Structure formats: C-alpha cells, structure tokens
C-alpha cells in the first residue's frame, strides 16, 4: 500500500472543520515551524525533501524559494495557484474541498519560511463554492489565533486572502495570475523579471500550486529526509493524480511517485482497469497539454522498460516516445476513442483560452482548430495534416508563455503517433461511426 501524506485523513467525517482537523494532528507542523525552527530551517527542509512544483513544470520548490529576493523594507508575498484549469486536472479542487485547512496550514508555514506577511489564494471562478469553503476555514483560523497577529505567540503575523478569478485558464500561468490579482487583464508578463524578483505589486513573490503548498505540511512534520525517502530518484514524495476517462474507477489518487503506470491503470487500488473490458488505446498522462502516448509507449519506454509514474520515467525518450508527468491529469482512452476528435476538443480549448498577446498563439490556435474541424467534417485533405504539423511547429517555442507550447504538443503528438487515424478521417470523412457524437459537441460549441 502506498503511503499517503496529503489525503491520509480525507475520509474523516468533519475534517473540513478546524477542531476535527486539529484533533488529527492539524496545525502541529505550523506549531513546530513557528516554535522550533527558523525560516531558513524550513527552507532547508523543503530543499532536502526534493519536492517539485506540482502545478505542471516540476521545478524544485526549495530552489525556487531560495531564489526569492530579500531587499530590506520591501514586502514579500506568497501566492497559491488554485486556478486549476488544465483539462483532466481536478486534484486541487478535491484537496481544498475536503481538507481546506491543510492548504491554509501550508500557506502560513510557507509564508513563515519566506518572510511573507501576506498571502493570497487565487482560485478559479468556477470554484466559487470551494472559495467559500476556504474562506470559512480562514475565518476559523483567525478565530483560533492561527492567522492574524502573533500567531501561536510566536511573534509571526500573517494574513491570508482568497481571490476568485473570472474563469480563465491563462490566469493559471503565474505572471498572468499576478496581473489578474493586481486587478488587471490576465496577460502573462514578459520574463525576466521573474516573480521571485518582481512579482505581485512589483515585490518578490513565490507562486506555488495548491498541492505543492500542502506538501510543505508533511515535510515539516516528518522532515525533508523522510519525504525524500519516498519515490524514485529526483521524483520524491507523493503526488495527487486526477484519473479520468475510460477507467473503472475515476477519481483523485495519492500515489507514491514510482508506481508503474501499468499498475496505476490496472490495479484495483487505483484506476481498476479499462471500463467495459475494453482495450487501452492511449493515455494523456499529465493534463491535456502533455503529449499523448499510445498504449505500448505509455506502459513501456521505447527501450522496453516498464514506465513509472515519475517525472523522469514519463519523460524518457523525449517527445519522440515519451511525455510528461505535468499536473497529474491522467486521461485514459479506450480502443473506441477517436484521437482526432479528442484532439479537436483540446485544440478548441487552447484556442478559446489564448490570451491573444502574441501572434503565433493568438492566430495559430484558431487556425489549427479550424483545420481539425474541417478534417472531422470530412472535408480534410492529406495536405491539411501536414499543414497542422507545420503550424504547431511554428507556434511552439515562439510565444511569450508556455500556452503556445501547450497548444502545440497535443497536435504534434497526435500526428506523430496516430497519423493513420487522420488519414482515415480524410478518406472516410463523415462515415466514421463516432461522428454523431462529434456533431453534438459541435452544436454545443456553436450555441
């Protein structure tokens, strides 16, 4: 059985409430940090833990924290990225909904480590009801003296605010998030400067994912070394995986990094195998932007080794035969799935979510969607498939923020691994059996 560090108590009745959370050890990490550790020691533990950002990029959190500029007299901010909008990813919602105090405790402890007097949780607009849950938790924390002045008599003051976004995927990109938090249009900033130097209101800022911040709590509790003892190589600790698609048991799972992909898909402990006894066709392993892999390549690397749920193993083979762990949005597709139709759906999403600042992403995402539409309508040509490939290659790496890449990778990987399916659409067009379903989607999109 895998150890659970975040969701250990998620099933406990009333864990959303402060008293129940505290009865099960809640806020003891904060107390430990405030009473027995210096901020630098907390940063050191996080470094030792090997924790990597759970928002998608997997950047080492301890390193990010040590980069924060500390000019005298300038406030620093901690911002929690709860914008969770990547299709296929819903783990942060689960965590916040079930155990909101875990995030609040992590926010206060992280802010202590980074010397931030104020922190913000930026949550996507569609999660308004989760924002209410967080606000209730924050109110409870203030009442109990866990927020506000002189927390637990440590002399540390801290205020934490929840800010609801207006429903834009791009506001999950950390600098667009900061702009939005400042009340501006959510356009990503051109970097440098990075938020660690000039972030919120021009002050040094750390932006971390919900799960990253929550993981700081067990790291303080058991120490960085204990956390690092879980996992494989540079993929330490546990990770929340949002499992969806054609599996028997969709849901949020906390896994120890290093579980074989095959075990994750087929074991009863996790996804429970493919629904209706169907065969596995493909997996998008880390949220809609990461490359899709066909069944053989997701279960085994190109070299024939068993693929593991780690940053390194999933990336093995580069984009030619590998993918990314990303945000942990694990989307499983069975043999009846149309890769082209699914790609159209993803591409439609990126087209809709582009902020429009830079030309390749603004213009290219819509163009790709239109071509996919044409192919699905049965009007495509083989040249259209080559054109799609060319367009994605001209977006990738030429944009301000990684949304351009996120829009390109699904297109590139679908063509790379499933080109014959595009050709089939070109040849057979509308006669393809799933077309009815497509038209329903299509009408919804146009309504």
């Amino acid at each position, binding site marked *: 059985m895998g150890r659970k560090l975040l969701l250990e108590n998620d099933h406990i009745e009333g864990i959303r409430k402060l008293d129940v959370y505290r009865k099960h050890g809640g806020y003891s990490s904060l107390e430990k940090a405030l009473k027995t550790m210096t901020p630098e020691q907390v940063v050191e533990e996080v470094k030792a833990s090997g924790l990597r950002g759970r928002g998608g990029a997997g950047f080492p959190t301890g390193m990010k924290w040590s980069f924060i500029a500390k000019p005298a007299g300038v406030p620093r901010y901690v911002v929690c990225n709860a914008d969770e909008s990547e299709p296929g990813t819903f783990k942060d919602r689960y965590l916040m909904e079930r155990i909101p105090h875990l995030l609040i405790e992590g926010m206060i402890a992280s802010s202590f480590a980074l010397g931030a007097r104020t922190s913000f949780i930026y949550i996507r607009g569609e999660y308004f009801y989760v924002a209410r849950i967080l606000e209730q938790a924050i109110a409870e924390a203030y009442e109990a003296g866990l927020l506000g002045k002189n927390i637990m008599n440590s002399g540390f003051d801290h205020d934490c605010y929840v800010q609801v976004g207006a429903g*834009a995927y*791009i506001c999950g990109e950390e600098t667009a998030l900061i702009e939005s938090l400042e009340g501006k*249009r959510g356009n990503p900033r*051109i970097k440098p400067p990075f938020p660690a130097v000039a972030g919120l209101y021009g002050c040094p800022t750390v932006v971390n994912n919900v799960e990253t911040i929550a993981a700081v709590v067990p790291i303080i509790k058991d120490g960085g070394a204990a956390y690092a003892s879980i996992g494989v190589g540079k993929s330490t600790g546990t990770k929340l995986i949002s499992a969806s698609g054609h599996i028997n048991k969709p849901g949020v799972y906390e896994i120890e990094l290093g579980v074989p992909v095959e075990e994750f898909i087929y074991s009863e402990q996790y996804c429970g195998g493919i629904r209706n006894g169907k065969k596995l066709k493909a997996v998008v392993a880390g949220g809609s932007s990461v490359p899709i892999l066909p069944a053989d390549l997701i279960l085994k690397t190109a070299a024939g080794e068993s693929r593991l749920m780690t940053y390194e193993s999933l990336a093995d083979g580069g984009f030619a035969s590998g993918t990314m762990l990303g945000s942990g949005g694990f989307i499983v597709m069975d043999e009846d799935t149309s890769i082209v139709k699914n790609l159209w759906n993803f591409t439609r999403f990126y*087209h*809709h*979510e*582009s*902020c*429009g*600042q*830079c*030309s*390749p992403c*603004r*213009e*290219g*995402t*819509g*163009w790709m969607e*239109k071509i996919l539409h044409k192919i699905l309508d049965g009007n495509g040509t083989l040249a259209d498939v080559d*054109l799609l490939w060319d367009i994605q290659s*001209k977006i990738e*790496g*030429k*944009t*301000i923020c990684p949304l351009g890449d996120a829009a390109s990778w699904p297109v590139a990987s679908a063509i790379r691994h499933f080109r014959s399916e595009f050709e089939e659409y070109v040849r057979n067009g509308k006669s393809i059996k799933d077309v009815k379903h497509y038209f329903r989607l299509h009408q919804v999109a146009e309504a």
Partner: protein
Amino acid sequence: MAKVTIDGISVEVPDGTTILQAARMIGGDIVPPTMCYHSKLKTSGGYCRTCIVKVTKGSEKDPRPMPKPVASCRTTVMDGMEVQNLTSPDLLEARAGVVEFLLINHPLDCPVCDQAGECDLQNLAYENGKAGTRYEFPRREFERIDIGDKIQLHMNRCILCYRCVKTADQVTDGRVHGVINRGDVAEISTYITNAIDNDFSGNMIDVCPVGALTDKTFRFKSRVWYTKPMDAHCKCTKCSGKVRLWYKGEEVLRVTGRRDQFGEVTDWICNECRFEKKKTSDWTIEGPAHIDRDSVISANHYESLKALKADIDRQRKALPHGDKVTLGHGALDPNNQ
C-alpha cells in the same frame, strides 16, 4: 560594457542594451524587423514576435545556446553573446511563420487602406513573408468604430501590438481604451464607445503600425505616396511643436509626428498641432523629410532613384528567371504612377 556578435559582426554595447538595440547600432540588413516595439514607449515589445533571433551562445560565462528563439526587443545582451538573425535559415523560416500568422486574419485591403505605403505590415510581409497564403477560412471581422471625431478604429487591421495602449498610458493624461476579450477575438476598444478626446491622443495614430487607427481628417484625401513630407516646427505650449507636414501641391493634407529610420516617432505632438494647424503659415518649414524606410514615399520625391533601383533589382532576382525580366520604358520615372 558587453560584447555581442550578431551575424558575425561584433559590437560593444553598454550593459542592459537589448539585442535589438545592439543590432540597430550595427545597422544594415541584420537589424531584425519590429512591429510592436517602440523606442519611446516603455515596456513595449515582446508581443508580435517578428523580431525573434537565435542565441547560439548565451555569454562568455555561460556559453550554452538558448533553447528557443528570443524576442530581440526584450532580451538584454550578455558579454560574449552570439546571435544569429539572417545567418540562420531556421530562424528565417520561423519568422516567416510569424508573418504568416499576422496575415491570416488581416483583411489585405491595402487598396482602400490609408496606411498603404507607410505600413509596417506591408514592409514586413514584403521583406519576410511568402507569396500566397495557406489560410482558407473566413477572416475575422469587426465593425469600424469612430473613437471621437478625429480617429477611426478599423479593428480588422489591428495586429494587437499594444502600442496605442502604451501611448495612451504614457503620453496622454488618461487612457480610455484598451484590449477587451481574449485570443483571436481580442479587440481594441473604448469603454462603451467612449470618445478618445485628449490633447495627445492623436499620437496613437502615429504609433499604429498598420491602418487600424487612422486620422479622420486625412481619410481618403490622398495616397501617402502622392504627398510630400516636410519637417516643420512651431512654438507650441503643449508639445515640442516638431512635426512633419504632408503636402499635396500647396495644401497641407495632414500633420504627423516625425519618425526615425525605424519608423518610430521621435517627438510626441499635441492634437492642436496635428488637427488644427493645416496652413503653411502656421509653421516654420525646415525642409524635405528624409524617409528611407517606405520606399514608395521617398522614391517618388526627392531621393535619388538609386535605392529604388536596387530594390527592384532585388525583387527581380528573387523571381524565377528574374534576370530576364526587363522593366518597361519609364518604369522608374517618378511621375509615372
């Protein structure tokens, strides 16, 4: 100081200089094209991606190449940096891609656009684009809007360079327009068709690289290449008073700010100078303005025909069997339009 090498040419520049500025110091063909950067506007640049270059060596200290092309207008040089622009075929291909993206939704209505002849997008497409388009879908369309009595917004032509937004922020005393919506339906708009009515708003027309913001007092009066630019000044209490007058015969058809060789405005002017002073007697004339960027304007007037000839030669060489193409009699006669 930092030493940077662009397409094999080295230059020493002060720390903090961008790759683009360094390239401009070297000058000539290696200067990357720009659409959204404007030297007089803080934080401009980074959006259009036409100025991308390849950094093949990061610096003397860290020689690793940069993994992706970078926007030269927003990337500062490091000592020992090596950059490729024209010398990298991949990069030129990537730039042609950017140009294509900028054009797929552009109406290509140059024949009825006031900007034609002094349009950065025309210049860009001509020098860096490809003939023909691979885009076969309907182009995006917006209604034309009059924003105030002096400026018309023709959103179909906008490339979302954000220059007018930054001008309004930095030059006028209050911005009442901005970008609304997102992605490829993002548009420049005022708050509920608010008039842009402000002493310096006319500068937005000058910074607009395309024909999206045009001067309503000049609309359709003349193609720009039939007009002669003259530098002039006046004593103005609001602005520098340094302007460019555009004559047709004896008549001043429009007044604009002056631009440097990269088409960027050098001195902001007020709306009174721009829209109200359209008589020669309002101005002290300095002399003909030198414009080498928009060849149709310069070639039609005072400049030697050498540059135009060279340009035509270049086009001709680019054509299949171009060397066999001959120009008709009088083709280079400036009076022969």
